[in-house]
């Protein structure tokens, strides 16, 4: 695989947390969330990480985004080690990786209107251009300019998630990290959002890193699937292979529980 085709490479990543524990006096213990995980994501594809909650999948996403410092290992994006970039370069690079969170409520600043939220994510001093881009972004996620002056609490759940996606698209990212992007929504909304995501991917050729415990969602979006359990990567396979012939017993168990197989 050459560098062009490869957008993200995670090497021997380990993450641990210090729990403050439930003990008032007690000493702090270390909890290993991710243990020596390596994986690669190809440009233009959707890579899904599945697993139960606590399996470490979100920790991987957070460490790519830089919110969690790993104990060891590296994350390379477009061939650059994200952890060793200079501040300025890093800021530019990081704009190419955008997250979409599960809970749109907490992902939107309650004190900002739709317009400000979006405008904040567009990096241009030209106000006119900003306005135009904001408008087109809104349209691209199926919202209208009527929503511009609204505050998040005046929007429906689906609209909020659309706004989050629009915001993530604003810096024209190459990689979107979708952390349970639809699991907070109703079924009908889920379908809408998923088709929106598929549309966007097709239109803009963006790579998705999907974090999910919902295999139905994974089946719709993903090209490759990695299974995590207790911080360890237990299986990695193409989507077809995974759903038709999972090798690891844990993967089989997952599939059975989800009712897909």
């Amino acid at each position: 695989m050459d560098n062009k085709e490869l957008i993200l490479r995670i090497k021997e990543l380990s993450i641990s947390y210090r729990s403050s524990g439930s003990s008032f006096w007690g000493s702090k213990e270390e909890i290993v969330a991710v243990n020596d995980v390596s994986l690669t994501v190809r440009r233009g594809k959707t890579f899904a990480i599945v697993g139960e909650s606590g399996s470490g999948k979100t920790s991987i996403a957070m460490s790519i985004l830089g919110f969690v410092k790993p104990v060891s290992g590296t994350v390379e994006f477009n061939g650059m080690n994200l952890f060793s970039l200079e501040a300025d370069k890093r800021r530019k690079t990081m704009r190419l990786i955008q997250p979409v969170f599960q809970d749109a409520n907490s992902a939107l600043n309650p004190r900002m209107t739709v317009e400000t939220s979006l405008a904040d994510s567009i990096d241009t001093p030209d106000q006119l251009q900003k306005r135009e881009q904001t408008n087109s972004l809104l349209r691209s996620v199926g919202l209208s300019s009527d929503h511009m002056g609204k505050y998040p609490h005046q929007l429906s759940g689906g609209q909020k998630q659309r706004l989050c996606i629009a915001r993530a698209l604003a810096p024209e990212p190459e990689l979107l990290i979708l952390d349970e992007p639809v699991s907070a929504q109703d079924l009908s909304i889920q379908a809408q959002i998923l088709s929106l995501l598929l549309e966007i991917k097709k239109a803009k050729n963006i790579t998705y890193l999907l974090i999910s415990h919902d295999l139905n969602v994974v089946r719709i979006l993903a090209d490759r699937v990695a299974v995590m359990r207790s911080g360890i990567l237990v299986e990695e396979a193409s989507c077809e292979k995974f759903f038709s012939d999972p090798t690891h017993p844990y993967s089989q168990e997952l599939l059975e529980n989800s009712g897909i197989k």
Partner: protein
Amino acid sequence: MNAFKNLISQLWKSPSGRIGLILVALFSLLALGAPLLSPYDPIKQNLLLKSSPPSISHLFGTDLFGRDILSRLLYGARVSMGIGLGSAFLAVFLGSAVGLSAGFLRGGIDTFLMRIVDLLLGFPKFFILLLVVGLGSPSIWLTATVLGALSWMEIARVVRGEVVLIREMNYVKAATALGLSPMNIAMRYVLPNVSGSIIVSATLLVGTMILVEASLSYLGFGVQPPDASWGTIMNQGRIDPLGTWWISASAGSAIFLSLIGFNLLGDSLRDVLDPRTENSQS
């Protein structure tokens, strides 16, 4: 402005919010309009009328020099409320700055700042105030500054607590991922979301500050003539508490009513702006 109207109308719904709003607005208007509303010059003496009890011409009576107590209280409102607002403003400014820095930057800075806050919280504040305000001839500015400088710690704690929570919110993460500068994030994403708590604390603090200033002045440590706060006027009534009961009665009522006003308003604001009931925010 719309948000402001909204807030007022929400406050107006509860009786305590209404009373608080009315009292605070009333006292603010009285203070601002003192020159228009005062029936007499607050420093004009009329020794023929010295220490006269309330009457039609002097509703709240006169003091030892025949000065009209009502007019003095109106002008005193400027001093008392000025010190209350000024010191609360300073405390809110310092407290928010420290709380925001500590909560947002975390790490060593957080530990360091909060240690200082703990240390200062342990200060026997009133005693230090006695000592420091007693130093010079305490002007309004000195009193307000010292009061503010000794009262920001609780606000810092509240703000830090909130900031630590808000920092973990996904919209802050999203903003970080967008590459916004930390300053931008702190001021536009974090600060506005703690403003509710800050406003509540500030409102309650104004009342507390008015009370502390009055206590100091009552003990003779507060602002000195020619300035007169409510506490100073009250202190004047102390010379002959029974013979000139109307002085401490009216000054005491002024302090008490303004405190009720700020406390009720603060409580109601808390109910309206409670960050835990997010959707009620404007």
